[in-house]
């Protein structure tokens, strides 16, 4: 009888300790998850800022200005355009 009791006591202690550890683990992982989620949000924000930047730099108004002013490009006159037919007529 005593043996069984001692055994059960040991099991109980082990269980209690594992509960404590798993609880601790859970909290640690939550903190980690939270940190990663914050990072994900941060990336979201950054993505938004970058796509904003991309469309601002890529606006046709700016592209045209750069092409005309810094690259000295110009549209060819109609007389200088040749229409080429491809083999399949498209």
């Amino acid at each position: 009888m005593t043996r069984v009791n001692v055994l059960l006591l040991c099991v109980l202690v082990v269980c209690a300790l594992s509960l404590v550890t798993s609880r601790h683990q859970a909290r640690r992982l939550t903190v980690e998850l939270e940190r990663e989620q914050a990072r994900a949000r941060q990336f979201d924000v950054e993505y938004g800022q970058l796509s904003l930047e991309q469309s601002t730099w890529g606006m046709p108004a700016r592209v045209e200005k750069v092409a005309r002013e810094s690259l000295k490009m110009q549209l060819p006159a109609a007389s200088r355009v040749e229409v080429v037919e491809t083999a399949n007529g498209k």
Partner: protein
Amino acid sequence: MRTPPARKHVPPPAELPRVRALLVFGAVGLLLVVLLGRSLWLQWMDNDFLQSQGAARFSRAIEVPAHRGRIVDRFGDALAISTPVKSLWIFRDKIAATPEQLRNLARVLETTPQQLSTRIKGEGEFAFVARQLAPETAERALALGIQGLNEQNEYRRYYPGGEVTAQVIGFTGDKDAGQEGIELAQQAWLGGTPGSRRVIINRRGDIVEDVAAIHAPQAGRDLALSVDSRLQYLAFRELQAAVERNKAKAGGLVVIDAKSGEILALANWPTYNPNRRDKVARDKMRNRALTDTFEPGSTMKPFTIAAALEAGKIRPDSVIHTEAGELTIGKQTIHDAHRAGPLTVEQVIQKSSNVGAAKIALSLPSETLWRMFSEAGFGTLPATGFPGEVAGRLRPPATWKPIEQATMSYGHGLSVNLVQLARAYTIFADDGELKPVALFKTEGAVAGRPVVSVKTARAVRHMLELATLPGGTAPQAQVAGYRVAGKTGTARKIEGREYTRKYVASFVGMAPVSNPRLIVAVMIDEPTGGDYYGGSVAGPVFSSVMGAALRMLGVPTDAPVDNVVLPPPDAIVQEET
């Protein structure tokens, strides 16, 4: 037994008095009972209070932000986008900053210490120190460690297209809620609902346990418009140039995909920058192409002709006597801008004869003409989903007097908006089908509603092509490499009940004629640069927008590149209305 005295020995302790033992036992027992009682009390009786106190210290409801969806063009390029910003605020009686800190704060916020202290010392309990800062700037400001300075997370909407797309997109106001344009109309789709959840934090402020989600956040959804930002810019640039060249009051330009009815570009002038709109007049925010109407003038004539062709009253080569350019109905006389003598129906469109159109209209019952106009979408909302779009005015035929029927045949006595007008021309571009117009991206071909027969539609399209050739009213609308078809409009503006000497010059056309892909409608309001004819004011705008747009979209040419033949200026047919 006695111990020998020689050996020094501690006597064994006498037995403790029983009373003392009991006393100690009792005291310890009592303490135990008190402790036990207290713990029972705490565990069961006073539990709620303690739980709530514990929760107050370690459990928090935190807000989970949900940001507003983006508005993108048909290729996914952002036209409106929200990014997080921070505002700094204070309670005026709680702020404690040293002059040194204030100077530093002013430097971070790029303002002067004087301005900053007036803002801090003002009236009221609560004040914003700075609004909508970049997150990094706000962090640097908070790092100064000023007591009582707090931050607040907000979103700010940016419009990369600026003034080019301003009237279509609209803008958002406080709390990122739509206030104008698409932002307003699609608030439910774009707007997110922030959620919240309950968590447990430890004493360092880290979240250690997720207890429950109170509301799941609902992020706003992205919205794809039918607009092509390259065409939009092109349309805007050409419109702006034309308004300035002609010293006009305002202007509008619409590009529609003839196959799907999608609006590819919708430009307005005057405009404003939605990113900086502190002192913008309401007037500039209007999307005139949808919310304003005007009397279209001659751009209505093709519909009159189509109605008569459908009714079998005329054929394209029937001859109409234009009575030396004057026709008197009752007490009023209508005029042509030039005398032409007898004209075929084709020439009535080509040379834009008012008398010719009026005579054709008077040969029809008013219901027939009204039904044609109505089925072409005039007098009904264009249903783009844009807030504030108008239907224009088309009176019921029972109230038409003969003179009104005559003037309506060439676009006076009714009003339309520019999008309606462009859309109505899908009838001629799509072999008789009226396409629904759309501001949002649609996939594939769209079924239209047949309004006139294929034969009528093609006949009118041919007449419209003649109008852009030498001998027509709009040779300036020609495009190198493509056959174009279109109609000019030069309408006098009505103010009160009188027609004034102010004009609306317009042009609506399509290309390539062999298989129309695009419809472009241009409207220039009150040109005062000397010229006011639709052909010379709006025609060149049509030509440059249409030409560049077709090249951009890679539409195969259907004419040689040297097809543009401009007659000498004095030979160009000018027309009024």
